[in-house]
């Protein structure tokens, strides 16, 4: 990975996804002056829902609009993990030998419609005939999982709220973050119910965003930058819709992708200096702690309570603010996480949220309520 760009997340009134993606690309090219548009051989783009702008033709439209003319430009979709899938498709494109240099990105323009309409669109991630049709929203599926976790392991609403509080704190000095506002456990507990036990402040915000990274073959990286980041593992696994499963407190897709990623990278948990984990809802971060292996199954609530996952803790999680506070413009979230890792390892984030001495990071991106999971492990080459 030789460069990265990210449009600020938020309600970006008057700007289309294409225009936001151009912002992200402008930053990517300005971060890497040796990289020219004609070096780019392919574009992969994560986008979950075309309904927000009534715009298909995502890949060719984005590439040619920016002057990345006539290259293959394909959209990939695994709902909320589409950005992670885009990154992985780029890795595979490079590894196949087909391309020397690719850009992987993600977009989502969500504020074109009101919140209820947005929830209906997002709920397309759930199974149509048996989940959506019988009253499930995506929030509801995660709420069902949360209640099982609470009953089985004693996880509390206060512990879930602590995830939101931490991630809001982390976002305070992230210029790309949407919700740069400190909140308290009380604020979360008092926020209105969306799908009990999940409340408004347990949920990531609906917003607009775009992000991208540039990848090249490892041996070519030093001709573009002195500070390349090596992708040591890129793993993905899928799973059935929630209604077909028997285990609601652990996501098999995450566990499978994590296992593959550690095997591929020859890294162990102890090598990971920080992680960006998928926290569309606070319960997701708690379950991800356990499925990634930062604590044993059922102890995710205790882990957040211990402070270990704060910046400065033993395993900082979501120094960007996460999907929860940086924002969750669905298709962009995965490459947005990669942007955070790029800037953290390049030491270009605000000192207050810099993970000190970090060299190796893990990214986890999840589709729907665990129907897909992508795990990347990255390491700064020069550190």
């Amino acid at each position, binding site marked *: 990975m030789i460069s990265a760009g990210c449009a600020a997340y938020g309600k970006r009134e008057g700007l289309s996804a294409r225009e936001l993606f151009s912002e992200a690309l402008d930053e990517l090219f300005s971060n890497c002056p040796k990289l020219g548009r004609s070096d780019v051989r392919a574009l992969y783009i994560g986008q979950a829902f075309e309904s927000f702008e009534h715009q298909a033709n995502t890949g060719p439209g984005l590439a040619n609009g920016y002057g990345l003319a006539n290259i293959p430009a394909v959209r990939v979709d695994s709902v909320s993990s589409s950005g992670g899938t885009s990154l992985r498709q780029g890795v595979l494109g490079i590894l196949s030998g087909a391309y020397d240099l690719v850009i992987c990105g993600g977009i989502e323009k969500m504020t074109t419609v009101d919140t209820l309409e947005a929830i209906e669109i997002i*709920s397309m991630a759930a199974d149509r005939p*048996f989940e959506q049709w019988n009253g499930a929203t995506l929030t509801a599926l995660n709420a069902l999982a949360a209640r099982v976790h609470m009953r089985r392991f004693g996880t509390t609403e206060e512990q879930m709220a602590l995830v939101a509080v931490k991630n809001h704190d982390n976002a305070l000095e992230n210029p790309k973050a949407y919700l740069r506002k400190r909140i308290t456990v009380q604020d979360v507990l008092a926020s209105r119910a969306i799908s009990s036990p999940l409340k408004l402040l347990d949920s990531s915000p609906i917003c607009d965003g775009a992000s991208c990274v540039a990848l090249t073959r490892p041996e070519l990286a030093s001709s573009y930058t002195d500070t390349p980041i090596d992708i040591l593992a890129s793993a993905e696994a899928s799973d059935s819709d929630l*209604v077909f499963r028997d285990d609601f407190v652990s996501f098999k897709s995450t566990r499978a992708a994590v296992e593959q990623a550690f095997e591929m990278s020859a890294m162990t948990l102890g090598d990971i200096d920080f992680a960006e984990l998928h926290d569309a809802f606070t319960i997701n971060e708690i379950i991800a702690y356990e499925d990634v292996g930062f604590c044993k199954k059922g102890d995710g609530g205790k882990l957040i309570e211990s402070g270990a996952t704060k910046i400065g803790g033993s395993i900082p999680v979501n120094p960007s603010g996460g999907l929860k506070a940086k924002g969750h413009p669905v298709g962009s979230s995965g490459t947005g996480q990669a942007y955070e890792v790029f800037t953290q390892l390049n030491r270009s984030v605000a000192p207050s949220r810099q993970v000190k001495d970090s060299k190796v990071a893990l990214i986890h991106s999840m589709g729907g309520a665990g129907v897909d999971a992508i795990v990347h492990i990255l390491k700064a080459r020069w550190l």
Partner: protein
Amino acid sequence: MTEKLTVDAFYAEGKKTGTLLGLECPEGHVTVPPRHSCRVCGSSTMKVLALSGIGTIASFTQVYSKSKEFPLETPYTLALVTLKEGGNLLGVVKDDQANVAVGKAVRVRFEIVNSNSKISVETTRPRIFFDLVDS
């Protein structure tokens, strides 16, 4: 010989007779909702069977977001129910919220809820509801 149970046939039977249909593989695993292969072992040799329609609440949530697609008054209580024979279903429990709890027994019921779905097969498709029963 393997038997198929389409989504449409599953709902049509529920609407017509109230019977909950499922699929069973040679290992005896029950797959509900219906799909091509067994949700436990992946076998694609399946036969259709009628189930009791009885299950227990594994989890529930009060949903507050209004939806044109699912025009029920909010909040409604959505339950995840594990069926007696195996498999799970999602559906609404139209009962006092205070009566709903994990572990309670329910019976499946199919009921039409009119919506403005543009998908042709959905215009006559019933939804799944659960009634609390004595366990």
